[in-house]
């Protein structure tokens, strides 16, 4: 810790220098032990949370758990979970870490793009696959009419597809999801609020798609999907997502997953009414 004591001169009373009590307090402070883990461990733990969205105490076989020797195992996890679900005001986010080979030298995220309510982190180490798929916060099945009544934005349906098998609303109406057979899924979400999806992407990078009045990005690889909590920006992993098209229309963010190829995805996207 680097610090200067000069600023304390403004405290000197009539003592002609640092007061005895003040000097004593400085000495006392210097003598106090505060347990702290090795800085490198803290840095690694923080980095792990930033790149994977996985809390360091969450079981994640591919992520080396940082050592936190002074903390009884289990307790921090409990608290994080409590927070995680208590506060979810987050929008969803899809994140893609393409599983394509990531050169060693690209361990650091090189660039962040924000697009349609989704944060794309380009470059960086591969993100471990979330072993246990998780639902969106507060996700529940509803009818299409209920979804329209609950959502904070106009809900549309793609004319290119039939009626969805299932409709869900999550996060207090911020997200409406429609599901079709074969893992096809359309998420519509309030794109005007700040939290984002994050995706950590290695090459191949997202591809711009312009078709039928649509400006979108195509994420052509499987990638971890998670959401970012509004409260503190913590990234919470959800599951491994299939290739996804993302775009924004009228302040509503969209992600269409499982359409197969980008042309079909673009056709479905363009059919939203």
């Amino acid at each position, binding site marked *: *810790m680097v610090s200067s004591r000069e600023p304390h001169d403004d405290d000197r009373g009539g003592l002609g220098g640092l007061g005895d009590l003040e000097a004593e307090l400085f000495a006392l402070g210097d003598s106090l032990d505060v347990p702290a883990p090795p800085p490198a461990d803290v840095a690694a733990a923080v980095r792990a949370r930033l790149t994977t969205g996985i809390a360091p105490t969450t079981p994640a076989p591919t992520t080396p758990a940082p050592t936190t020797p002074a903390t009884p195992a289990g307790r921090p996890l409990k608290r994080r979970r409590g927070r995680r679900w208590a506060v979810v005001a987050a929008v969803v986010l899809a994140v893609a870490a393409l599983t394509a080979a990531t050169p060693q030298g690209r361990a650091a*995220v090189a660039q962040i793009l924000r697009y349609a309510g989704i944060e794309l*982190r380009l470059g960086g180490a591969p993100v471990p696959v979330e072993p246990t798929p998780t639902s969106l916060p507060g996700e529940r099945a509803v009818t299409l009419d209920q979804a329209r009544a609950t959502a904070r934005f106009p809900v549309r349906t793609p004319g290119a597809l039939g009626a969805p098998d299932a409709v869900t609303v999550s996060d207090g109406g911020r997200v409406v999801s429609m599901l079709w057979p074969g893992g096809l899924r359309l998420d519509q979400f309030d794109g005007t609020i700040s939290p984002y999806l994050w995706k950590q992407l290695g090459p191949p990078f997202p591809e711009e798609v312009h078709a039928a009045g649509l400006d979108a990005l195509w994420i052509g690889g499987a990638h971890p999907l998670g959401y970012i909590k509004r409260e503190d920006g913590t990234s919470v992993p959800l599951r491994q997502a299939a290739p996804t098209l993302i775009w924004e229309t009228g302040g509503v963010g969209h992600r269409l997953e499982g359409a197969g190829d980008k042309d079909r995805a673009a056709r479905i996207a363009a059919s939203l009414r």
Partner: protein
Amino acid sequence: MKSDTPMDDDEAIARSLDGDLTAYEALVARYSVLAHRTAAMLGAADEAEDVVQEAFVKAYRHLSSFRQGSPFRPWLLRIVANETHNLTRSRGRRTGLAVRLGAVTDPVAPDDPEGAAVAKDRRARLLEAVRALPDGERDAVVCRYFLQLSEAETAEVLGRPVGTVKSSTHRGLARLREEVGGELA
């Protein structure tokens, strides 16, 4: 992670803003111990590690709102202080100073066991007196003397006007003098 030449804060922040997590790791490592001290001394107790991790994650997320060129230390510590405050508020109590006296040989009396014992006793009593201060005064005293922050930094970290920090510190010192100052030379 390894760095060939040490980055200064400004450079590390600029690189972090560009998404360079290795640069951010360097910042985390640099301020980790101070952040733990701050969290522990402002009441996070044994949850200081959680608080500090949350604070660093949050700081990264909000780095774009950091005014580049201004000092990083108080900006970061304010986040640590806020996280600590949120924690203590959520559990309805604060633990106060989560520290213990180290086994320090008093340099004043290295060859004088009796004097050293007296000095240690005095340190213990002073620490107790700091613990017993009203929250506002204790926070100010802790920031100014235990964390060795300037008045301006203390004001930023605690989110109070400088004038308030001055008066809280002043009152705290007066109270400490009353409590333990009698035998002071």
